[in-house]
């Protein structure tokens, strides 16, 4: 019985990690890749660690370590994703050409790196509609 639970949990974890890696390879631009990989890989590694906690029964150190790693991953993965996504927007990584709306367009003050809620307060020279970050061709974000 416990073998079946372990097999199901580890299969789900490995498949979630496989889908994350297919997503980082196939998604059309950086922001979609980021949103796919962080969640799926956290889920997959969490399931594998739960497997390890079940596999060593009656051993408190393994359970504590597994819970610590899961807690740490869930706390830190969104922070790292937010930081790297913000940096990517600042250095001008293009969005996919099929992007419908870019709500951050003109909202960032590029001098002080602050986010404004009113685009007129942000001193941004490049707010003309032709000069946004949405890519013109598919090849720019490949």
């Amino acid at each position, binding site marked *: 019985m416990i*073998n079946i639970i*372990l*097999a199901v949990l*580890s*299969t789900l*974890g*490995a*498949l979630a*990690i*496989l889908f*994350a*890696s*297919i997503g*980082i*390879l196939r998604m059309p631009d*950086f922001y979609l*890749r*980021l949103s796919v*990989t962080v969640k799926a*890989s*956290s889920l*997959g*590694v969490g399931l*594998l*660690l739960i*497997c*390890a906690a079940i*596999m*060593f029964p009656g*051993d408190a*150190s*393994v359970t504590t*370590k*597994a819970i*610590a*790693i899961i807690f*740490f*991953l869930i706390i*830190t*993965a969104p*922070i*790292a*994703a937010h*930081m*790297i996504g*913000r*940096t*990517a927007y*600042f*250095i001008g*990584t293009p969005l996919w050409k099929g992007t419908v709306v870019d709500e951050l367009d003109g909202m960032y003050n590029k001098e002080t*790196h602050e986010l404004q809620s009113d685009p007129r307060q942000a001193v941004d020279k490049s707010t003309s509609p032709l000069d946004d970050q949405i890519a013109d061709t598919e090849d*720019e*974000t*490949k």
Partner: protein
Amino acid sequence: MTLANYFDFVILPILTLSVVLVFVRLFKGPAIVDRVIALDLIITIGIGIITVYSIRQNQKILLDVAIILALIAFLGTIAFSYYIEKQKDD
């Protein structure tokens, strides 16, 4: 099929294939931020591989390495994003 064989012949090959797929993105990623998240994902998959390996070898001490790797992945991504953002100012 025993559970040990299942871990050896199904789970570990799937994880290895995942690392290879992510490595393709690390190799060809158009921007530097693509490479940063590919490295982050490789380390996260490495935590999973270490976990499965510690189950198979019955060595629970290997989970300590997984804790350190999780710390290093977070610090590396934060440091990369901080300094890439600073680079544009000068």
